[in-house]
């Protein structure tokens, strides 16, 4: 591995639902739990509000991996937004597999507001998985080599 590769750190875009996972991330923070700093958090109203296109767009704009996290089934603030999302994500995974995009690049989780430790663990797993895969260049748009 060259020194450039050794210095490479993956960029992960995390879509976190406002009601559970974002609060879970907050809990991880105020509990001073350590997790890799590779994640850029985007707060969304609900995991059901995450259009699959947002995920593709993140990969196009330079993300190496994407995490979408929402409330556990039954806990959705909007009753069933996460259950609708679950179907969409199952289909999106199949579609990405069909065109050869590694399944670990786009991951999904349920993290409640009380699960600070689980949030830290999920981030560690996603960052570790994407690190093992290396940079994602497949959907990257030329001239878009970095996101802040």
């Amino acid at each position, binding site marked *: 591995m060259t020194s450039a590769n050794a210095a490479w750190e993956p960029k992960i875009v995390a879509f976190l639902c406002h009601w559970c996972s974002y609060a879970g991330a907050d809990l991880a923070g105020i509990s001073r739990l350590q997790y890799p700093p590779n994640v850029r958090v985007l707060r969304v109203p609900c995991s059901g509000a995450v259009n699959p296109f947002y995920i593709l767009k993140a990969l196009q704009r330079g993300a190496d991996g994407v995490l979408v996290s929402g409330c556990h089934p039954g806990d959705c603030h909007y009753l069933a937004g996460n259950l609708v999302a679950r179907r969409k994500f199952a*289909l999106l995974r*199949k579609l990405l597999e*069909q065109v*050869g995009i590694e399944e670990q690049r786009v991951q999904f989780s349920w993290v409640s507001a009380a699960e600070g430790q689980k949030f830290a663990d*999920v981030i560690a797993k996603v960052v570790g998985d994407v690190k093992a895969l290396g940079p994602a260049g497949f*959907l990257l*748009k030329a001239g878009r080599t970095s996101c802040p």
Partner: protein
Amino acid sequence: MTTNLRETAARLLAEGTVQLVLGWERGTLPLRTTPLFAREPGEAGRLVYDPTCDQNLAGYLGRVKEERVALIARPCEARALVEQVRENRIDRDRVLAIGLPCSGRISRSALASRLTGRVIREGRLAADRLVVAGDDWREEFPWTEVLDPVCRGCRLPDPGIYWAAPEGAVPPEGDRFAEFDRRRSLSPEQRRDEFRQAAERCLACYACRQACPMCSCAECITDRTAPAWLGPAADPSDTMLFHLVRAMHLAGRCVDCGACARACPVGVDLRHLHLALEREGSERFDHCPGLDPASRPLVGGFRPDDREEFIL
């Protein structure tokens, strides 16, 4: 059969049962058809029906204003009509679906590769033989040799939407998933390469979107300028995103008529994306598009016991 069809169409128009008959007429090039919008009984005489009929007519239903419309329907049109009725995009009572038996369609790309680039000046069908001729050549062979792969193993069950049901239809044998299965056997790298090559050929002309009977958004994501999700030029990254998001939009709705692949001017065939979602929809969610106007949508709904083994 064409004579019968013309008589029926002329009668429906003359009686005022419908104000419009949607069918096909001869195109200006050999072996090509173009949609016919017949509004006068006299125009019904231009109707044709044979394996060269290319377009999926159901896509035009949302764009015509007539109170009652007769639709010449093969199984492809019928399935698309079912989906449009299911989505409340078309009033079931507005459409008379005249079912015609279909034994498949000619694939122009298969024909072109068989003729290895020779230009067709003349082409006609005589029973099951296809006769094509150029400046200094002539060939004759059964047209089923250039059958559209989408027609192999066609799902023919009557979705119960016909005004006049087709009789004597024999679906061509084979497996419409054949190309899909080939791609499933590739490694992720090979799949990425093939998808990238297709995206690089894509001109971003969106003929696939225009030809699709189910691509029905009033404003397509590709036409939006604020924010401009996709650039105006045919950048491979943008075309990849377009085809992926189009597949997602068609998840559980695509009736696998193959109109997108036939409309493509550069021969990009990405049916396998839609088939991947169709198969996942049927295996995972027991969903089959195009057969039941009362069925629940695949995306936008859920069952409490949907599997979630992939969620951390």
